[in-house]
């Protein structure tokens, strides 16, 4: 049972992340590698607010979302000008900077949580407050937050705003030529997407109780991107399908009674094989209509 609850919580976190990427990559058509950076912003903001400031769960989560949404301006303003590969490189740079900040904002002997040592460097932050005490309650909390995120996604993306994003993805110049400004649409969409990533980061920090700079690692961005792509971009159901598949696929190996080292390698192999099969047979993803070029 505990194991199932653990899976549920991870599913919620992954699904929120896949939704976040779905907005940015599926609806806006901007391939980003910075999502783990915004995930880390959420995780660190939550950890610092609860550990050092003694904040409660809800305000701490909102702090993370707010900071991530503000930080998303870096990406959205870049997206006013850059597109395609250049934007991907830019997002990679943003991810690298955030990772660098997480690792390096820690001057040796300074006390953790001060301006000299904000992130506690590679040691990470431990003893992060968990708002609920049982795993079951946490699963309910995670499901509720995922539900709210899903409802927001649905309201936003199936509204005229979502249609503007899709039209912008197809042909930005034609849309501007119809009198629709695209700059603010990008700002809002990116802020929403990065806010979702931060929400997932806060949940992650609260659940594990410990974070270190590896939450900002590129591997995570790539994993979540795979989830979003496998699930299918540009619609509302893909993120759930993608999160479920990439979560359960490696978990199934757990039952095969393999040694850990072998299972880890096998998991990577499985990802690879799955991605290759998908690109051949269903390049638009399980639920998708739109192909990421």
């Amino acid at each position, binding site marked *: 049972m505990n194991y199932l609850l653990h899976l549920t919580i991870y599913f919620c976190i992954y699904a929120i992340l896949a939704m976040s990427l779905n907005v940015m990559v599926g609806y806006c058509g901007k391939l980003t590698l910075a999502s783990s950076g915004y995930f880390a912003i959420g995780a660190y903001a939550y950890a610092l607010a609860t550990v050092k400031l003694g904040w409660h769960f809800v305000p701490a989560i909102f702090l993370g979302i707010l900071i991530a949404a503000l930080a998303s301006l870096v990406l959205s303003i870049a997206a*006013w000008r850059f597109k395609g590969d250049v934007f991907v490189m830019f997002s990679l740079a943003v991810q690298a900077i955030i990772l660098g900040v997480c690792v390096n904002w820690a001057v040796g002997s300074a006390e953790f949580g001060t301006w000299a040592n904000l992130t506690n460097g590679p040691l990470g932050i431990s003893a992060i407050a968990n708002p609920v005490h049982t795993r079951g309650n946490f699963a309910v909390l995670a499901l509720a937050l995922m539900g709210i995120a899903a409802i*927001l996604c649905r*309201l*936003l993306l199936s*509204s*005229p*705003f*979502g*249609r*503007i994003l*899709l*039209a912008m*993805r*197809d*042909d930005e*110049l*034609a*849309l*501007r*030529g*119809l*009198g*629709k*400004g*695209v700059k603010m*649409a990008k700002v*809002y*969409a990116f802020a*929403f997407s990065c806010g979702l990533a931060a929400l997932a980061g806060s949940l992650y920090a609260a659940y594990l109780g410990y974070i270190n700079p590896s939450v900002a690692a590129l591997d995570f961005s790539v994993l979540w991107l795979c989830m979003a792509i496998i699930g299918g971009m*540009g619609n509302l159901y893909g993120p759930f399908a993608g999160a479920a598949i990439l979560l359960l696929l490696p978990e199934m190996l757990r039952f095969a009674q393999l040694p850990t080292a072998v299972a880890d390698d096998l998991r990577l192999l499985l990802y690879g094989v799955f991605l290759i099969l998908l690109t051949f047979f269903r390049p638009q993803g399980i639920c998708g*209509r*739109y192909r990421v070029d």
Partner: protein
Amino acid sequence: MRQIPGRLNMDKAPASNVKTSAPARGSRPEGAVLLRASGLSKAFGSQVVLDGVDLELRQGEVVILRGFNGSGKSTLLNILSANLEPDSGVLELGVNGARKIFRFPSRWWQKLGLKNEFIPEFMFNKGFGRTWQDIRLFSTLNLCDNIAAAIPGQMGENPWLAVGRFATVKRQERTVASASQEELALLGLREEGRMLAEKLSVGHAKCVAIARAVRAGAKVLCLDEPLAGVDNLHKKKIVELLRVLAQREHLTLVIIEHSWNISQILGLATTIWTLEGGKLRVEQPSKAGSPPVNEVSESDIQQLGRTATLTSVRVAGKEASKPFLEVDDLVVYRGRRLIVGDYEGAGGKIKGVSFTLRQPGLYHLHAPNAWGASTLIEAIAGLIPVARGRIHLNGENIESLPPWQRVSAGVRVALARANGFQSLTVREMFDLAQVRSLPEGFSPLLAKQMSSLSGGERQKVVLWSILHGPEFQVGVFDEPFMSLDAREAERIGDELSRLASEKIILITVPASTGSTEEVIP
């Protein structure tokens, strides 16, 4: 809830309106000046495209903008819709009494983009809309959403309101959806509302693009080649649509069109702008000469399916024992959609396309839009898998050959939409195509990248690369004259006729030469 502003009243406008408002042909309307430009200049590198263009656009005018390939028609349109900044000059807008003056070159702070109003969305909100040569519908949206996305004044475009007042937004969405559906119904596309725009034929897509711009609220509409690549049936529809826009909806139109299509819209025009050598000449339509019409004498007609025909325009030489090109019962799908071939009867049986070309000569394939001529050509070239049927070249079966081997077997294909390799220079294009002798008139273009050429120039380079490349036996050209000017089209036409004495030259004709109506009953 905000009212959604007026739409195309094709059916409902009172007939009396037409008489009172339609300006007589040949007389310039004396409406208010909407746009005045003086001294507009634009150069790309060392090539001067516009050299001090002065113009004045008045309310209710219908302007035809013409000129040879590369004369800067599209450049001028791009400037008028703020997609391109001129090097120098003054642009003065005066729509709805509000005046706005742009001076170029713009100042450095405007270039930073902080408060630059010379951008497409600003121009559109002043009433200056445009359509594109390559149509540019939102390809992954359906037709309904294509129009709905353009409708102004939607509350739900603001994400805060989309979430905060979702019930009101939903109500407004229903109005918007029925308005766009109605718009499509007026274009005769009632059933296609859910169809993805990328699957639409050119003729319909151009109609939808025009309707979309009007629905978005354009008062001045610049149209970049609205009739190019469109068959006669849809051409009539588009001309009718333009007539309604100009005469009932009082829109001001600027239409770029090529010479052979001009005759169809000349009746609407009040002014002709001719671009030549970077200068703009303003004329009355009565003085502009009528374009040449190609007369073809059909001798041999093969019927392909229900609506298309294959005409031998000129055959030479003796009938070979083995047919040069033989297509037998060809059926091609794109995804699940049947493109080449016809459903026969109720049983769902499919009849493929068959034809045989036995002699060298020039053949015209007359097919309406959406018939699948381009797909047929791709199938001959081996670029799309064939569901059923045989393709023979000189009696040899070629449909198992990959495209590059078909080329060595003697097939050449020019597709209508693939205009060469964008990042190569013209010289590299010719080298790649193994063109040995450079045709005259290309020397100023040689060092340029394909992507910097105009649509017609690209087409020209692609055609000459095929015509002057290595020997071939069967050349298939998809709408070769589509974006060429009269002078260039004549040159290519002569070249094709010359080659037709020993090769098979098959060209698709989008029913724009005027001869299709005689061929298709």
